[in-house]
């Protein structure tokens, strides 16, 4: 039996090997830099580096002003918007923006709100008024709801949500006022640096192998089993079938809609996993987990296409456990880049 199947102990890699990878994914870095800097990026600066001696520039985030000169306070790319000069850090905590689809974890249940860890400097808040409660959208929040907040979401729970606003003190306010948001089940969670997530229109994808992924803009990722169909559509259909089966009385349909919604709504806060997650789905989830870790290791921006390409490349490894080795991770990154080049 091979030792590497039990443990692999290697010498630390030299920096030259590491640079090779960096060179090969240069194009992706530039692409990301441009998208985040609004097309006005001008090279990379390090902390303390002089950006300009011209005092007409306004100092923005990531800069400081000393003796009429502007210096960078972080390592990142310079962005110039009109007269505003700022440096967008390469690494660092996630800075939320309104409309971001993110994954968060409840850290605290407070007065009429939940505190949520989303990887920012300060925990975000999710107001009781910004969630869908059992009983439909039109229901008002009552005192009894305040008392049973832990029945909806409690400490440790994962949820996917959207940034609603950013308060003036920098705290993000979240909402889950859509059927695609809510508590997360049937899968596993992993974290990557938030700078690797490429912002796009959609952040929830169905992948091959009956696995779905939510690539939160904050670098929090949820891999889960693809649901057969969303519960809402079935609710409406079941309801429609009922109405057709019986004599229709005015108001009857709408009442049953509310009640059904009431019953089904509790499901969105359930902690129960789907009992029928097959072992093949589970191992596919693990495979995607390793693929995303490998992409993060190679500092590649994580997109739906790359995750799928990585998954296809990983199929060459019959023993998925070997995917956590450094060489395998580099190999996966290389193959993803190669197949991207071939597809153009």
């Amino acid at each position: 039996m091979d030792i590497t199947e039990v443990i692999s102990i290697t010498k630390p890699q030299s920096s030259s090997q590491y640079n090779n990878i960096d060179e090969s994914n240069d194009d992706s870095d530039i692409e990301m830099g441009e998208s985040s800097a609004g097309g006005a990026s001008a090279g990379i600066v390090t902390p303390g580096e002089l950006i300009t001696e011209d005092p007409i520039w306004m100092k923005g985030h990531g800069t400081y002003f000393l003796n009429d000169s502007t210096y960078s306070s972080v390592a990142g790319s310079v962005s110039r918007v009109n007269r505003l000069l700022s440096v967008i850090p390469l690494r660092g905590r996630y800075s939320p923006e309104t409309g971001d689809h993110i994954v968060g974890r409840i850290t605290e249940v407070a007065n009429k709100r939940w505190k949520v860890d989303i990887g920012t400097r300060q925990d975000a808040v999710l107001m009781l008024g910004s969630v869908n409660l059992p009983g439909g959208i039109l229901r008002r929040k009552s005192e009894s709801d305040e008392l049973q907040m832990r029945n909806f979401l409690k400490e440790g729970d994962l949820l996917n949500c959207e940034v609603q606003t950013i308060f003036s003190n920098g705290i993000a306010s979240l909402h889950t006022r859509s059927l695609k948001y809510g508590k997360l089940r049937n899968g596993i969670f992993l974290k990557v640096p938030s700078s690797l997530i490429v912002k796009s229109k959609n952040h929830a994808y169905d992948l091959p192998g009956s696995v779905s992924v939510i690539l939160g803009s904050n670098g929090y990722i949820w891999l889960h089993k693809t649901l057969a169909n969303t519960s809402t559509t079935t609710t409406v259909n079941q309801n429609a079938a009922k109405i057709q089966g019986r004599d229709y009385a005015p108001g009857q349909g709408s009442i049953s809609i509310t009640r059904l919604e009431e019953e089904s709504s509790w499901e969105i806060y359930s902690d129960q996993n789907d009992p029928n997650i097959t072992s093949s789905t589970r191992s596919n989830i693990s495979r995607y987990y390793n693929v995303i870790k490998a992409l993060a290791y190679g500092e590649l921006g994580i997109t739906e296409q790359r995750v799928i390409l990585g998954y296809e490349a990983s199929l060459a490894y019959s023993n998925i456990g070997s995917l956590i080795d450094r060489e395998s991770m580099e190999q996966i990154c290389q193959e993803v880049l190669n197949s991207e080049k071939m597809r153009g």
Partner: protein
Amino acid sequence: MTLLSPAERSYLRDSLTASPIIRPDSRTPHQFRPIEAKTSFLSSSNGSARVRLIDGSECIVSVKAKVVDLASVSNLVEVDIDVDSFRDDSNFVTNLKFHILNSLANFPSTVLKLTTKYGYKLFIDVIVTSHSSYPLTLISLATYLALKTARLPKLVSEVNDEEIAEQPTFADDWAESTLIQDLLDAPFQPPVLITLGIIGNNIIFDPSIEEEQIIDNSLVIGFYNGRVITPINTISLSSISNGVNSIVLVKALELGNKYGGMVVKALDTLIEQDIDDENIF
């Protein structure tokens, strides 16, 4: 420590109790996380090793020898552990120290005696700069590497000081220093401690932080001289702590016997590589 949600817990539990076991990072049950290691990198200590995991967990061990009056010290091996963000007198650090010191209980201390009056005292200093899961295995592997590569300077003065008092003096030439291995007749093998997680009837090696939170119990087993040795301890890494079924315990020992040798072999291979590299320069 991050808390898992109930849904995550039950998903992980179902995956780990399933047969075959599906670990979140798809390791096989007996697979360790890949390790990067380097030995003899601290020039001011007799032996040193640095071990890190890909997630950034890192442990640095230094072995220093000091000549002491044998009558004035009770033990010739001392271990000191420093874990980032933990107080030195905290339970966590004390337990780690206990495990490491305990595993070195059968250290061949006769090799440390220079004369009847003087001997070396080994100071094993461990720093865990960062860790996510329980760092015991990491510390143990680093200690193994540091001890195996520790070099002691050559004694040039007389060994016999029974009649005439003799201060030990040493050769200036570091090339003449010897490994602890060379001073012994038998091969020198410090024990390696392996953390095993028990979940249901399944056993997993080297549990990660997520796995630690849902496993029923954990075992620390020592591996020495080709087989599992006592003490075998249970430790609780999470709030859950169930008893250990005797059948599972036997299975754990079997697996330990089967795979422990591989770990030692991998460590020895790395030491050889490092020694070869040094010889080039």
